């Protein structure tokens, strides 16, 4: 059963003005719950934009509109800065002969996927570089006052990381995240940057973004794997909105959706909202295979967690900086915890 507030959010975002109240009694809407829901999905700016576009202000309390209008305006101003900083960054890389492609929210804004740049909330500037350029990028960014968090400690790497540590510049507003890959190592068998990296062979152009079908796939795979949508059937309204705005008619054929279990799962999870006109049905056999796959994934994630924890423990022996940090953490939290007391003494010895 979809909560009334979520129904209203979906209606405002995806339906015509005369259908906004379809299946809803406005008297039963709790606007505080709507704020909680929409902000949890980072959808307050998109909600305001659609209320404005569909001219349905009269359905909402005045203070509610005032509040989300403020959020929209702040977000729009921030996105203007984000776009200008992304362009500056691109020019910097261009000058240093570093090939790069913008990803995720920044790519969506640069590709003009949205009617208004204030609609989409974007955390940071994501872009992908070639693995061979990693050191060069680090040097160029450091030279231009970008630095990683003081908490960051370089550890021994087994796999190519998804991205380098997030970097900030005290003279800039938006943090940046240089990617080496699109997903964590365990998911790269399903979706990786191979296709995207091939486009690096093309001539450098200052602003480069993936094509829309690629953004479509990245959006769905990131939600299914990194945000665990495939494992717990959670949905993200921001991702749904991105997919809706990407309007990939070629990708949205029933044949394409059915052949990819993860894309199919995405559309099955949100089928109850009736946003996309695609009859995706789940059969008994596909249900069973989905469950089996989910269990396999859970086991592999468990194994990986144990492996990573052991790797960190091993590195405690060799990395004095990491040992120092561990010691500080334990010093703060170890009181009355016998095992921690023991580890603290052991690390200190």
């Amino acid at each position, binding site marked *: 059963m979809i909560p009334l507030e979520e129904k209203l959010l979906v209606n405002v975002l995806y339906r015509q003005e005369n259908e906004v109240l379809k299946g809803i009694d406005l008297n039963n809407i709790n606007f*505080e719950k709507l*704020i*909680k829901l929409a*902000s*949890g999905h*980072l959808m*307050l700016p998109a909600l305001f934009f659609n209320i404005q576009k569909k001219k349905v202000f009269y359905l909402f309390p*005045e*203070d*509610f509109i005032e*509040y989300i209008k403020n*959020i929209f305006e702040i*977000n729009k101003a*921030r996105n203007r800065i984000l776009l200008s900083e992304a362009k500056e960054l691109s020019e910097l890389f261009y000058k240093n002969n570093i090939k790069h492609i913008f990803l*995720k929210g*920044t790519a969506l804004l640069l590709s003009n996927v949205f009617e208004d740049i204030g609609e989409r*909330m*974007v*955390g*940071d500037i994501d872009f992908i570089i070639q693995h061979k350029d990693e050191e060069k990028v680090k040097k160029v960014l450091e030279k231009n006052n970008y630095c*990683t*968090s003081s*908490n*960051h400690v370089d*550890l*021994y*790497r087994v*796999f*190519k*990381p*998804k*991205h380098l*540590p*997030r*970097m*900030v510049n005290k003279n800039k*507003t*938006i*943090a940046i*995240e240089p990617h080496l890959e699109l997903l*964590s*190592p*365990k998911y790269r068998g399903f979706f990786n940057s191979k296709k995207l990296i091939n486009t690096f062979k093309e001539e450098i152009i200052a602003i480069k973004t993936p094509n829309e079908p690629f953004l479509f796939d*990245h*959006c769905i795979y*990131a*939600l299914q794997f*990194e*945000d665990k949508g495939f494992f717990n059937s959670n949905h*993200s309204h*921001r*991702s749904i909105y991105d997919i809706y705005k990407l309007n990939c008619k070629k990708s949205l054929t029933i044949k394409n959706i059915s052949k990819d279990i993860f894309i199919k799962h995405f559309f099955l999870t949100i089928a109850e909202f009736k946003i996309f006109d695609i009859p995706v049905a789940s059969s008994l056999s596909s249900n069973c295979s989905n469950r089996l796959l989910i269990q396999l994934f859970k086991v592999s994630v468990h194994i*990986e*967690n144990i492996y*990573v*924890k052991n*790797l*960190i423990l091993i590195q405690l022996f060799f990395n004095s900086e*990491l040992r120092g*940090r561990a010691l500080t953490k334990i010093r703060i939290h170890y009181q009355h915890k016998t095992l921690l007391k023991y580890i603290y003494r052991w690390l200190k010895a």
Partner: protein
Amino acid sequence: MKKNTEETAPSGISRKDAIKKMGKYAALTAIGTFVILDPMKAQASSASPSPSDGGSGGETPPDGPPSPPGWG
């Protein structure tokens, strides 16, 4: 007799009420929204790659606010 010192906007709502109501919605807004909108907080949320990123950043996440949810 109580002295009325409150400013009243043309809409009839007093400033105190407006702040109260703004605060009400702000209090209900998810932290992720503010983390994105406030540049200082967003920059402070400098999350390093997690251990699941292949061991490159197998450190404990920093003490700053969490990174905003979603795929960016």
